[in-house]
């Protein structure tokens, strides 16, 4: 048996548990309750002002969250990557450790802090909680790329007369883009589709798109729920196409 055949069990598993389910989302999205083809679910979304409003809010929160995570996370990743080896390991662990505590529990505690210091729950607290939850997912891939960066490029730029500022913008930043891309993938779509977290952080005042999908599925409106999921799938397709260097982006994760 050829060793390339060893991938077959996994391919079969993924065909059943990843590809088929996604195809089913599409099938259900274009069916009515009795299994006939229809476009009603899709057109319903575009005439449903509630769903459209939630969709707009979700995109807005996700864009803001992603930008804040890059702004806060990039310097952190850069500082970490430039630390000496021993202290670096400890700090990285410190950043990852909170992720091992249940995310819902952490979110509830964050909401509780806001209650304690008297800040009303709403858009601001939602954004804070999102940054709090997703920042490590931005830091880690950028850090991974920066650490593996070939120092000789930086030295070459310096030798050729670039100022430290120029070296950073013209060499370090472009070379670290795969990390940023994978960070964006890890933060943007998950934010749009979050449910539970947004409810906790805003006292049910602001819903994100994930909540609407969940509500429809849970109240047995599978077809409409599937249609909403389908719309998200299309957006995911578009965002991943923008991140042209996909393979590098994924590998930055590990």
């Amino acid at each position, binding site marked *: 048996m050829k060793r390339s055949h060893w991938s077959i069990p*996994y391919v079969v598993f993924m065909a059943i548990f990843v590809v088929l389910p996604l195809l089913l989302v599409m099938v259900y999205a274009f069916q009515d309750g009795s299994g006939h083809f229809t476009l009603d679910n899709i057109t319903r979304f575009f005439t449903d002002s509630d769903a459209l409003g939630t969709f707009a809010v979700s995109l807005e929160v996700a864009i803001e969250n992603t930008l804040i995570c890059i702004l806060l996370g990039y310097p952190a990743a850069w500082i970490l990557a430039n630390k000496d080896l021993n202290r670096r390991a400890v700090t990285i662990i410190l950043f990852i450790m909170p992720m*091992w*505590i249940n995310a819902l529990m952490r979110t509830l*505690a964050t909401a509780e*802090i806001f209650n304690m210091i008297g800040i009303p729950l709403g858009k601001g607290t939602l954004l804070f909680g999102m940054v709090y939850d997703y920042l490590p997912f931005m830091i880690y891939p950028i850090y991974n790329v920066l650490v593996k960066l070939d120092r000789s490029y930086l030295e070459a730029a310096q030798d050729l007369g670039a100022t430290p500022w120029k070296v950073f913008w013209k060499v370090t930043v472009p070379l670290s883009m795969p990390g940023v891309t994978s960070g964006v993938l890890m933060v943007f779509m998950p934010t749009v589709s979050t449910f539970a977290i947004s409810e*906790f952080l805003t006292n049910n005042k602001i819903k994100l798109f994930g909540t609407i999908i969940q509500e429809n599925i849970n109240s047995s409106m599978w077809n409409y729920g599937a249609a909403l999921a389908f719309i998200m799938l299309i957006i995911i397709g578009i965002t991943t196409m923008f991140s042209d260097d996909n393979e590098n982006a994924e590998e930055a994760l590990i």
Partner: protein
Amino acid sequence: MKKFLAQTYIWFLLALLYAPLILIAIFSFTESRVLGSWTGFSTQLYANLFSGKMQESGSLLAAVENTLLIAVISATVSMVLGTIAAIGIHNLQGRKKQAVSFLNNIPMINPDVITGVSLFLLFVFLHISQGYLTVILAHISFGTPYVVLSVLPKLRQMNPNVYEAALDLGATPGQALRKVLVPQLRPGMVSGFILAFTMSLDDFAVTFFTRGTIGLETLSTYIYADARKGGLTPELRALMTLIFLIILILLIIINVRQAKTQKNNE
């Protein structure tokens, strides 16, 4: 000065990340129902957690048990399936390799709500009743890609002739796998296992959609239901503090051992 600023910035971020956890830990030593109101020092929450007297903490411990069981099983299967898959993918070429790599990326890019809803529809479509098995299958499906991505770099670093050499010297393929391949891939397998395990532990959305109606609760679904009822079970604070302490101790042990082996190697 620059260094000082950089260090301050890192500490500032860490303080933000840890503030809620510290808050939970502090308020695990008081009995009040709401987080944030101090009603005097007490270790009652810890006592309740282990006495199993109250019905609530009984189901809480069951939820912890379920969470761990699901994470261990799914991460173990992911590790085996993912390692075998990685060896296969490593030996694929051209378009086929690209196609399988793309397939491997889908679960990582998919937000968990989509993964959850799509698997829910699958189980409905196939008339599989949902419960432990479906949750474990779901967790394997999103955990395995992390194992594949952790093992692939180790395969690239490996000398491809070692395996052939073992075969030439008379090892059966099984022996060559166990005695030659696995030891070299082990670091990748372990980090893949840890990633899959972590993803499983922390998962809420996928479990939520695939657990069915048999009353299966993991820690995440328990907390969600609890918070929706209004107010968390106070014992959760004690539990979270304990989990945090266990992780902390484990990490310290691992670090000390690593430092020791490093010293020995020098």
